[in-house]
């Protein structure tokens, strides 16, 4: 037993303390956190835009110039573009997508690979966020919009002040789930040589040849960040739902 423990502590020393190897993990964690946060933000922005495009009911030409036909064409184009985006992103693996971004689209440029990673992750996440958002908007009863409009609100204000707050509340659990998936999915950025947490564990393993210790360490760190995020967002959800319990 003591021998086993001594052996374990020896390997712990070799894997994390000797040669400051924990710094690999720390640097990797920092990269993972940055890519995750930026990816989530980009995903939300893209997702909202695409969801709006999917539900687009542009009515400008018809209203001001009496040319409703043009509006119809615009709506159709927006819907086709957003549908194509969703279809392509959901129909291809994210690893393949990141390869395409890095080795095809950004190949001749000198954009830092971490930026490429963020774009690839955000672009991928955007499709899923868009579908979640669309589901949220569609889940709100049509009567809410009608009420808002008959109270004299513009369609924009109705969306912003009546429909969206309820929609976001409804889809928050699904959104949280998407963020969690995204954080874990950032492990694929090591495919384009970004030194993230997963890659840090692989590099340590390449130095110490210990089969599981660095990998388990990375797994524990991933678990902890996701746990923190979950706790934080669950609190937020509770706060939002306070008005529900009447």
């Amino acid at each position: 037993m003591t021998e086993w423990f001594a052996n374990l502590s020896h390997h712990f020393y070799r894997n994390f303390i000797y040669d400051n190897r924990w710094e690999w993990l720390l640097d990797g964690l920092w990269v993972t956190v940055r890519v995750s946060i930026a990816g989530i933000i980009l995903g939300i922005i893209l997702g909202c835009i695409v969801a709006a495009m999917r539900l687009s009911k542009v009515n400008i030409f018809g209203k001001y110039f009496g040319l409703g036909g043009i509006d119809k064409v615009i709506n159709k184009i927006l819907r086709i573009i957003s549908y194509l985006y969703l279809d392509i992103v959901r129909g291809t693996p994210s690893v393949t997508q990141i390869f395409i971004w890095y080795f095809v689209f950004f190949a001749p440029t000198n954009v830092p690979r971490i930026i490429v990673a963020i774009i690839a992750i955000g672009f991928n996440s955007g499709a899923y966020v868009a579908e979640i958002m669309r589901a949220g908007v569609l889940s709100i009863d049509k009567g809410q919009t009608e009420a808002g409009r008959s109270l004299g609100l513009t369609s924009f204000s109705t969306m912003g002040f009546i429909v969206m707050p309820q929609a976001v509340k409804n889809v928050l659990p699904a959104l949280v789930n998407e963020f969690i998936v995204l954080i874990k999915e950032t492990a694929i950025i090591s495919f384009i040589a970004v030194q993230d947490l997963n890659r840090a564990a692989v590099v340590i393993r390449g130095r110490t040849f210990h089969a599981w210790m660095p990998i388990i360490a990375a797994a524990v760190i991933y678990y902890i960040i996701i746990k923190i995020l979950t706790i934080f967002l669950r609190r937020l959800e509770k706060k939002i739902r306070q008005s529900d319990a009447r």
Partner: protein
Amino acid sequence: MKKAIIWILVIAIIAVGVWAIFFRNGDDNGYENGEENGTVTGMHTNDPLYGLVFNITPVDFDGETANDGFLTMGTNADFAPFEFASNSPWSVDRVDGIDVRIAGLIAEALGLELRVSDMDFGAIIPAVQAGTVDIGIAGMTITAERAENVNFTTAYYTASQVIIAREDNEIESAADLVGLRVGVVVNYTGDIIVSDMDGVTEIIRSNSGVESVLELVNGRVDAVVIDRAPAEAMIAQHQGLVTIEDSSAFESENYGMAIRLDNLELLNAVNAVLRQMIDNGYIDAISAAYMM
């Protein structure tokens, strides 16, 4: 009537597909079994070693292996010409290369059949330690750190690291890498050496030699440090790249095969075969043939 025609067509297509999948490989033209007891010849008329004969005496081995009756070799098939994905007649489990050819003969001399398990380079030594593969053969340089974790066989190849750069480079020695972005393959010897250098601006650890050279071609790194043989194989594929040698910074190093620390029986058996292959010139011949 129409239905019947469609059915006949479908059956015909399936039959042709089955034939193509299962039987086409069997009647390989030019393939003749040139192995006789204890001797090895180039078996295929396209084989660079066609007609040559190397005598190898079988070695007694009755230890256990990861898969009964098989010698399972862990490798990273991204290291041409030592191991690369291929469907050539000499490929085993779709991997061909110098190491695969050598391992094939070792397995034969030990009375086993070769099986190749392709994995991450960094995963090979852990796999050997865990016993999921019997032997790690991947153009692996014998280093003190690695030797603490696995036993190495007799060295079978002498190599060194080189720098690959674009033709318009101003690199003359490894000291000139200071202030540059240097590409390496994660966990390769080049990675270990460059990680210990001071003053390199950024180390880009790609997943394979091909990817790190692609980074160089695309201008995302200024130089790549990698073993000489794959470097030469890769610059043959890309125009405008050159290799730079620096024997003082990159000492010559020896490739060995990694075997679990407690598996001395396999180690001795493999060493006995390897020594014969070094003595009878097989390793030189096969290396020269694959490096053409």
